């Protein structure tokens, strides 16, 4: 295997294991070796993050593991995204405005969703926490996204889903716009009652929901050798620890 291929695999494994400094280092090495930002993103980082999502869904990963993987991914994105924009070849699966609704300052779930979406190839415009309906309206008017994501952590703030969706309708922005909602207390039933187009139970599900709502198909697959590579690395670490 060439160093370039090896490096892509190590990058994916680095994201999976949440090794932020290592992922940054490998991203720089990959660029120096002549890998394009596009190759790094689509052939290394995204497969790594997709494996993170898969493990979260099967219960092998939990929120802390998602957080460190997302942080590692973000470190690499900070390097490759500007280069892609500069080269004018940034592929995007779609544009998404994300925010935590009015009255709610929690952002852990929204931030995870943002990274997962961005990592999956979406362009994310984050309007922050405690975002009033007017702020969502203004962001949609300015950025013309295909998708809006509303997040809530508190039972008390969830009614703002409906209010925000109604504000988007009143502003004449609802046609052709897909709206998804999520957050710890949210359920499918509540999402339906709010008038949303979709509900995602967690950050990992957000990506598949976003793709489904926008009708996009993925171009990446988790490389078959990735799981084996991670297992081998984990065995190595365990054996080194035992020797200590």
């Amino acid at each position, binding site marked *: 295997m060439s160093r370039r291929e090896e490096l892509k695999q190590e990058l994916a494994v680095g994201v999976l294991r949440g090794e932020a400094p290592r992922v940054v280092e490998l991203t720089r090495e990959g660029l120096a070796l002549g890998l394009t930002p596009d190759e790094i993103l689509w052939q290394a980082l995204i497969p790594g993050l997709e494996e993170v999502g898969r493990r979260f869904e099967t219960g092998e990963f*939990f929120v*802390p593991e998602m*957080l*460190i993987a997302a942080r590692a991914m973000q470190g690499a994105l900070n390097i490759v995204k500007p280069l892609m924009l500069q080269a004018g070849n940034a592929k995007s699966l779609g544009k998404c405005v994300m925010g935590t609704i009015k*009255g709610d300052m929690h952002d852990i779930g929204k931030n995870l969703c943002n990274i997962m979406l961005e990592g999956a190839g979406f362009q994310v415009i984050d309007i922050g926490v405690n975002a009033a309906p007017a702020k969502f309206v203004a962001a949609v008017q300015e950025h013309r996204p295909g998708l809006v994501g509303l997040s809530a952590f508190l*039972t008390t703030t969830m009614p703002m889903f409906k209010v925000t969706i109604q504000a988007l309708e009143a502003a004449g922005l609802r046609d052709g716009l897909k709206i998804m909602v999520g957050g*710890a207390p949210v359920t499918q039933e509540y999402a339906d009652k709010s008038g949303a187009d979709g509900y995602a139970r967690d950050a990992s599900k957000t990506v598949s929901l976003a793709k489904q709502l926008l009708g996009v198909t993925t171009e990446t697959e988790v490389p078959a050798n990735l799981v084996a590579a991670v297992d081998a690395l984990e065995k190595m670490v365990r054996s080194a620890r035992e020797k200590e």
Partner: protein
Amino acid sequence: MNVAERTRLAFTRVGLPDRVPIHAWLGMTFIQRTVLPRPARMTDLFHQWIDDPLGTLVKWQADLGLDPMITTHSQHIGELERWPRLLCDFKEDAYAHWREEIVEIDRSESSRTLEHRIHTPAGEGAYSYRMEGYSDWPLDYLIKDEADLDLLHYRPDPDLLVVDRLKAMVEKVGDRAWWLHHAPGPWNEAAELRGVTTLSMDLYDRPEFVHKLMRLVTDRLKKLYRKLGETGIHSVSMNETWVGMGLSPHIYQEFIKPYDDECVAAIHEAGYLVSYHNCGRGTRFLEDMVATGADALETITPVENSGDFDLADVKRRVGDRICLFGGFNERLLDEAAPAKVRDEVKRCLDAAGEGGGYILRTSGAIYQADPRNIEVMCQTARDYGRYPRPAQGAGGSA
């Protein structure tokens, strides 16, 4: 059988009460909408509660058919609570080495942003939060790096807490309500000091730091729990909300459970009961939470209410070791037809009522509800929750 006797039997599982106890936690927005006359200021309302708990908190709940439950709570760092400070605050000398300066750094029509600047012999620290409506939102946290841990040695000593008002209030109420004082558990307090996102990443980045923080927090909480033992409260709800954020059993066992165990033991030594509060997810380490030695487990939030607990499964797995305190989907109380509310009560009682050790309780606080639905919930539980229980499927008398 009075309220406290009934709930105590369910908590301790030493015998069967006359019926399943029925509790709920009424949220501020619900109280504000339904309780008349409305006080001009929140502080006035709190003073009414402290001065006349029987004519206010106990009466409102009893009128709805509930077994009254009083939920006072201890002050958390990172938020400004008016109610706890009215009930118990520290003696002046507790602040000798922990001087707090509160500075307003922003103000809008509906909110204020405050920064607490802490001065201690170990150095300075700060945290900030925004106050809006009844809520306080942390914006940044006191423990920004490892050196800040030294500040924690100078936090006001729980031994210097003045608990006379709380004690007097407890005495006034006696056994006419169940007293559930809320106090943080160690993981929750650590999250409030460090921020839960950063703390979660610390588990991987600097595990020794997490243990140091948990040790400091636990040692102080044990003192707080011992002090609360002087007040005569029946029980404490050890708030480990952030345990329910989605942690692995391995993380729970290594970083949280040993400290939870110590806190539960301290509460028992202080002579009252402990309810373990996880209002999120946790079915994967259910047995571990029970193994802390807690007397009750709350809130057993069902999937329909975005938790991951199945009450019947929980009863099967741990019902012989702990009182189950929750499981009712309170969202039904807002708009659902009374028949649905009745069905939900019966679902809970059929799942967990058998053999005692169960308290019907809304899994979350009630912020929005039709009071008539609360009455339906209570009446159904009073009829269908009598011991000995009717044979399942017989339908009861509701």
